[in-house]
C-alpha cells in the first residue's frame, strides 16, 4: 500500500485542476494583455481565478496578486512593505517562521534593520504580552505565520493583527499552510498582507498569491510591465493561475470535510501511534493546530532512519531530524519549542489531505510501531 502523508511538503495536483489547466497549454495561448480576443479570452479566465482565490480568503479580487510561489509572496511582502514604510527599521517575527520569512528578515538584519524574533513555549505558542511589548517607535513590519508547517500550531492571527493595527504597523502573515485548511476571512482579520502557495492546496508548484489589503503601502518586488496592476510585473502564468482558481474552488467546497473527516483521520492515527509506541509524545499545542497535521517524537531513535524504514513500507512522511536536511542540527522549530534533543531527532510529521482514507491510517498504525521497536533495539540509549 502506498500512503502519502507529507501534504505539508506538497500535495497531489487535483485531477480537476489539471483538467482546467490543459486548454491553456494548447489552444488558449493568448497573452492576457493583448488587444484581441485570443488574449481577451484568457484575461477573463484570469479574472475568474482571481475571484475564486479572493473568495477562499474573504478578500476583494483587486487585493489578490499572483506570484510564482509562497517564497516570492513572503519576500515581496516583507521587502516591499519595509521599503514603503519610510525609514522604519524594526521587524517583529517569530523563531518558528518558515525559512522564506526567516532568511529574508535575517538578511535585512545584516543590512541595517533590527529584528525581534519572538520565542515560543513548549507547545509552540507565543506569549501575547511579550508580543505586545516587542513593538517600538520604529517598528515597520510584523510577520507572523498563520499556521506552522512542522507542528501545525495555529497562531492567534486575528488578535495579533489587531494589536499591530492599533499601533499603526503593517502586519504580514505567511498563510501557506493555513489557506485551504482553515477558514480565512480577510474582511474581519485586520492583517494587511498574506501569502499563499498553490502547491499546498492541490494546485501545481510554481504559483503563489500575495494578498495586499487595499491601501497598504507596498513597493513592487518585480519591476517591468504593468501586470497585476503594477504590483507584480511579468507575463501572467496563465495555466497555473487558472489551475489555482480551480484549486481554490475545490478548497472552499472541501473546507468542512477538512475539519471533520480529515481531522478525525488525523486524530485516529495520532491516538493509535501514541498508544502503541512507548516514549512517544506529541509536539505542538493539542488544540490550536491544523486539522491535517500531527508531529510526534519517538525518543531515542533518529528520524531519517524511521523515514527510510517507512518508505520501504510505501509510507511517505517527514522529519525534523538533522540528518534529513543535511544540516547537523534538528529543526529550528523543534529547538525553539525546547523539545529535548533526545526527542527532536526522532520527530516525525504526518500531514494528511483529502485524498487520504481510513484504511491508510490503520496501515501506518500497524507498520510504524515495529519500526520504532526495531530501531530502539539498535540504539545504545535504550538499555535492555
Amino acid at each position: 500500500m502506498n500512503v502519502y502523508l507529507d501534504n505539508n511538503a506538497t500535495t497531489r495536483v487535483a485531477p480537476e485542476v489539471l483538467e482546467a489547466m490543459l486548454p491553456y497549454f494548447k489552444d488558449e495561448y493568448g497573452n492576457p494583455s493583448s488587444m484581441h480576443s485570443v488574449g481577451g479570452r484568457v484575461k477573463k479566465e484570469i479574472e475568474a481565478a482571481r475571484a475564486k482565490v479572493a473568495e477562499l480568503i474573504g478578500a476583494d479580487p483587486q487585493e489578490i496578486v499572483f506570484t510564482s510561489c509562497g517564497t516570492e509572496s513572503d519576500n515581496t511582502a516583507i521587502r516591499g512593505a519595509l521599503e514603503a514604510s519610510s525609514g522604519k527599521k524594526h521587524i517583529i517575527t517569530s523563531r518558528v517562521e518558515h525559512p522564506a520569512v526567516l532568511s529574508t528578515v535575517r538578511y535585512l538584519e545584516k543590512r541595517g534593520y533590527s529584528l525581534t524574533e519572538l520565542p515560543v513555549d513548549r507547545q509552540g505558542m507565543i506569549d501575547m504580552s511579550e508580543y505586545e511589548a516587542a513593538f517600538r517607535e520604529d517598528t515597520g513590519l510584523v510577520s507572523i505565520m498563520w499556521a506552522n508547517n512542522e507542528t501545525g500550531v495555529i497562531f492567534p492571527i486575528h488578535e495579533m493583527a489587531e494589536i499591530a493595527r492599533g499601533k499603526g504597523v503593517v502586519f504580514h502573515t505567511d498563510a501557506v499552510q493555513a489557506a485551504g485548511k482553515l477558514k480565512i476571512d480577510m474582511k474581519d482579520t485586520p492583517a494587511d498582507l498574506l501569502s499563499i502557495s498553490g502547491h499546498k492546496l492541490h494546485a501545481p508548484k510554481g504559483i503563489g498569491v500575495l494578498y495586499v489589503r487595499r491601501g497598504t503601502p507596498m513597493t513592487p518586488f518585480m519591476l517591468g510591465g504593468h501586470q497585476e496592476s503594477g504590483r507584480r510585473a511579468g507575463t501572467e502564468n496563465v495555466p497555473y493561475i487558472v489551475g489555482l482558481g480551480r484549486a481554490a474552488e475545490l478548497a472552499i467546497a472541501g473546507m468542512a470535510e477538512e475539519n471533520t473527516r480529515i481531522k478525525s483521520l488525523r486524530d485516529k492515527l495520532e491516538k493509535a501511534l501514541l498508544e502503541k509506541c512507548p516514549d512517544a509524545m506529541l509536539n505542538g499545542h493539542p488544540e490550536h493546530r491544523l486539522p491535517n497535521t500531527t508531529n510526534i517524537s519517538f525518543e531515542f531513535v533518529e528520524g531519517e532512519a524511521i523515514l527510510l524504514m517507512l518508505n520501504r513500507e510505501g509510507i511517505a512522511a517527514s522529519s525534523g531530524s538533522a540528518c534529513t536536511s543535511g544540516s547537523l542540527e534538528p529543526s529550528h522549530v523543534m529547538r525553539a519549542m525546547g523539545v529535548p534533543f533526545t526527542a527532536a531527532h526522532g520527530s516525525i510529521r504526518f500531514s494528511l489531505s483529502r485524498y487520504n482514507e481510513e484504511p491508510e491510517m490503520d496501515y501506518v498504525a500497524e507498520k510504524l510501531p515495529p519500526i520504532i521497536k526495531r530501531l530502539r533495539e539498535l540504539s545504545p540509549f535504550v538499555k535492555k
Partner: protein
Amino acid sequence: MWDYTEKVMDHFYNPRNVGEIEDADGVGEVGSLACGDALTLYFKLDENKKIKDAKFKTFGCASAIASSSALTEMIRGKTIEEAEKVTNQDIAAFLGGLPEQKMHCSVMGREALDAAIENYRTGKTVQAKKIEGKVICTCFGVTEKEIERAVRENKLTTVEQVTHYTKAGGGCGGCHPAIEEIIARVRAETAVGATNEARPAKLTTIQRIKLVEETLEREIKPQLKRDGGDIELIDVEGSKVVVALRGMCSNCAAAGATLREVVEAKLKEFVSDDIFVEEEKR
C-alpha cells in the same frame, strides 16, 4: 532524498552484528544524543589475539547504522594491529561510498574503533567522548586533533568538507576561521612530506615541472585567455605550485575560485593528486 548505495541500504535494513558483548575485551563509545548520532562498539579476541566477535549499537541515520555494521564486518578476524589501520575511508569504500555530507558517519565508526582499542590496551573506563587537546567546535565538541586527522586522511580543503566529515563548524559557525587555519597548516605539512617522500619512481622534480608547464599551456591558458586573462608559472616546490594571474584575471573578484576550480583542478588531473596552487604574494 540521499543517494545511498545499495550496500548502504542493505546494511541499514539488515544490519550485521547488532548487540552488546557482556565480557568484551574492548568497548568504545562515541557521539551523543545531542549530536544526533552515537555508537557503542564491542569486540572480543580469540586465543590468537584476533577479533573473533564484534558487535555494535547505534543511534543515528541510515548511514550511521550502515557504517557501524560495515565496521564490525571489516574488523572481524583481524588482529588489533590490523584493525587499527582501518580508516574512515575504508569504511566508506566498503559501503560503495557515502554522500559527502554523511562522511562523518564513517569518521564516527573509526573513532569508536580507536576508543575500543584504547580501552583494550589501557583498560581505562570508557568515556562518552575522549577530549584530547583543544576543543575547536564547541557546538559539537570537536577537538583540534580530530579535525587535523580528518583533514590529513581525507585530503580535505574546505571548511564545508570538514563539517561534512567531523561535524565541526556545523552549528554556530564561530569556529570557521580556526578550521581554516588547521586546514592550511595540515596542507602545508603534507606538502613538505610529499617532497621528502620517494616519489621519483613516478615523477622526478624536473619531469614534474615540465608536466606542470605543459598542462598550463595546453589546458589552462586557453581557458583563461578566453576571458581576457593569463597565468604565469612562478615556482614549483614539491606539490606546491606558485602562479601569478595576469591580465583580466589579476584583479578579478573570482580569482580565488579560478585558482581552485580551474588551475588546481587541472593540475591535479594531469600532474598529480597532491598538487595545490598558491598565488604569488606581491
